[in-house]
């Protein structure tokens, strides 16, 4: 067991608690937050692949010392291979996703600490708690443990919005919490039904029970559990009908907070989507449902994005529309499709963070996100404008940037799977995404500055520029060398087919 596996979760939690305690000591908060954020993407690179059993309770089949004296009643049955402990599994796909989440968290924290006059320990606490929760969700092979961190991640997102001090943020946060109070318990009920039928909360053991006939795969209670878990997945991912509240949540957070919240959403969607596929892929209906919901997210979110006038809301809807691409990849159920979906998730987490922080500079200089009141920003910040333009091109899937590769893979996967219609819709909506972005870009940067617009002389912090350049470099690297990510993600995809 590699000790670094639990440290990926324990370190940000411990750091978050210290930051909360030391919230009045600005310098300590800044140093501790930067050091922790810097370490986050490094740990997955140093950690060896494998499983971690909390309490050291490995399955009996892997513990010869205990297994030797046991009766055949235990060694001859599934009890011998079942997992008694909460198990974390770290493999190549988790490595890529946790690394990317760590990168986004680092630049979000880095930008937040430099854009605010007084670093907030409480804000950093929320950012790290959310990050730790999503890392745990990606690692956990225990569905109940996953649920606990799912709830913590949801609360951390609400906290980030409440701490943002944006107009009407409390109202949006409250709505999200109330809707979470409907979806969260239903997800838990789904997990409880799964436990009731299979007698297990370990995902690997649940799959074993279903595949080896220990439970009836067509048991109606199991089908009900699938429905409820899928509903929880919709809430966690901000897929319809939760896309309205999720986009509102993004728009009420500060740009660095929104950058991190969208990364949480992307990886929560992937983690729960993969679990649905792992447990229920024997039901063809589960993949059809994933595709249907993803298509709905794609069409509804992108068409809603075009008609918005607040650039944070435009980005929020565009980010949710991009989730549709991930879902289509997962729903296709082929190795190429799932790899493309996972790759799209990695790309989206980076690109949307790039866009939120990039457009955040406009908010920093003008204190408004209403595109009707904006204009002329190109003359004030031509370099930032260029970086934002490149981020938009990346989101639309323009080569040689990263989303081009993942979207191309998705289209190829849909053609291979015999559903070219999905490919056509994805191309169509990529064009509309590009148009939506260009509309926002034109109104903010290219048209003449409205006379009533006040552009403050605050200098954009170097940390923000560094973050934007770093995101651009990652987009270029993943666009030119996609195999860096896809070779790692393919292993997980193959195991799901």
């Amino acid at each position: 067991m590699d000790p670094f596996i639990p440290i990926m979760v324990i370190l940000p939690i411990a750091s978050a608690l210290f930051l909360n305690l030391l919230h009045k000591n600005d310098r300590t908060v800044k140093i501790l937050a930067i050091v922790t954020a810097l370490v986050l993407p490094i740990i997955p690179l140093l950690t060896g692949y494998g499983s971690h059993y909390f309490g050291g309770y490995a399955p009996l089949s892997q513990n010869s010392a205990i297994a030797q004296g046991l009766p055949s009643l235990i060694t001859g049955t599934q009890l011998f291979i079942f997992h008694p402990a909460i198990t974390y599994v770290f493999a190549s796909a988790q490595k890529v996703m946790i690394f990317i989440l760590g990168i986004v968290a680092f630049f979000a924290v880095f930008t937040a600490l430099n854009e605010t006059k007084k670093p907030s320990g409480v804000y950093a606490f929320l950012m790290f708690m959310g990050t730790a929760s999503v890392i745990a969700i990606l690692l956990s092979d225990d569905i109940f443990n996953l649920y606990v961190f799912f709830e913590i991640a949801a609360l951390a997102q609400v906290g980030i919005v409440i701490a943002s001090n944006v107009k009407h943020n409390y109202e949006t946060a409250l709505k999200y919490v109330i809707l979470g109070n409907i979806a969260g318990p239903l997800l838990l009920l789904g997990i409880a039904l799964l436990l009731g039928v299979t007698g297990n909360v370990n995902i690997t053991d649940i799959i074993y029970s279903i595949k080896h006939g220990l439970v009836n795969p067509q048991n109606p209670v199991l089908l009900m559990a699938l429905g409820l878990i899928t509903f929880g997945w919709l809430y966690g991912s901000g897929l319809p009908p939760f896309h309205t509240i999720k986009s509102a949540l993004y728009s009420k957070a500060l740009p660095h907070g929104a950058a991190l919240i969208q990364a949480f959403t992307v990886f929560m969607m992937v983690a729960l989507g993969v679990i649905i596929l792992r447990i229920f892929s024997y039901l063809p209906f589960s993949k059809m449902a994933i595709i249907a919901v993803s298509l709905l997210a794609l069409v509804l979110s992108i068409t809603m994005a075009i008609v918005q006038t607040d650039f944070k809301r435009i980005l929020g809807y565009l980010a949710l529309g991009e989730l549709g691409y991930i879902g289509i990849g997962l729903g296709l159920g082929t190795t190429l499709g799932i790899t493309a979906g996972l790759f799209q998730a990695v790309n989206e987490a980076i690109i949307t963070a790039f866009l939120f922080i990039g457009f955040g500079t406009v908010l920093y200089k003008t204190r408004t996100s209403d595109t009707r009141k904006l204009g002329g920003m190109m003359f004030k910040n031509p370099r930032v404008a260029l970086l934002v333009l490149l981020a938009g091109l990346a989101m639309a899937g323009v080569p040689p940037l990263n989303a081009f590769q993942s979207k191309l893979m998705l289209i190829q996967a849909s053609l291979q799977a015999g559903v070219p219609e999905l490919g056509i819709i994805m191309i169509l909506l990529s064009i509309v995404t590009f148009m939506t972005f260009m509309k926002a870009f034109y109104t903010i940067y290219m048209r003449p500055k409205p006379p009533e617009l006040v552009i403050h002389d605050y200098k954009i912090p170097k940390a923000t520029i560094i973050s934007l350049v770093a995101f651009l470099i990652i987009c270029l690297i993943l666009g030119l060398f996609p195999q860096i990510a896809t070779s790692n993600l393919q292993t997980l995809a193959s195991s799901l087919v």
Partner: protein
Amino acid sequence: MSIYDLILKRIREIQGKTEEEEPLTNISASSMLTAEITLISSILIALIMVRLINKALMIVLVIAVFFIALMITPIMPKLIREQNDSFNNMIFYIVLALGILIALFYWGNLNV
């Protein structure tokens, strides 16, 4: 009245209801029109996938949806009205989605 004029009229109606004082601009009109075309074309293309279940059903659905879309156009103003930040609307669609999801998963898997 052309479809374009009809869309402009509906946007003005919505602006009136939400008490927005901004004039109707070229950008907002073209955005709404793009959204409308995207929505209808995406739905029609998605419906072609029904061919995997039944080709005759696909033809009937595509033709039916095409004519319904023509009759109820513009759809986007209605869609925007439904997808606002009203808590009541959100709860309604969430409960509706839960009902559809459970019904489809429960009976869909048992009977397909």
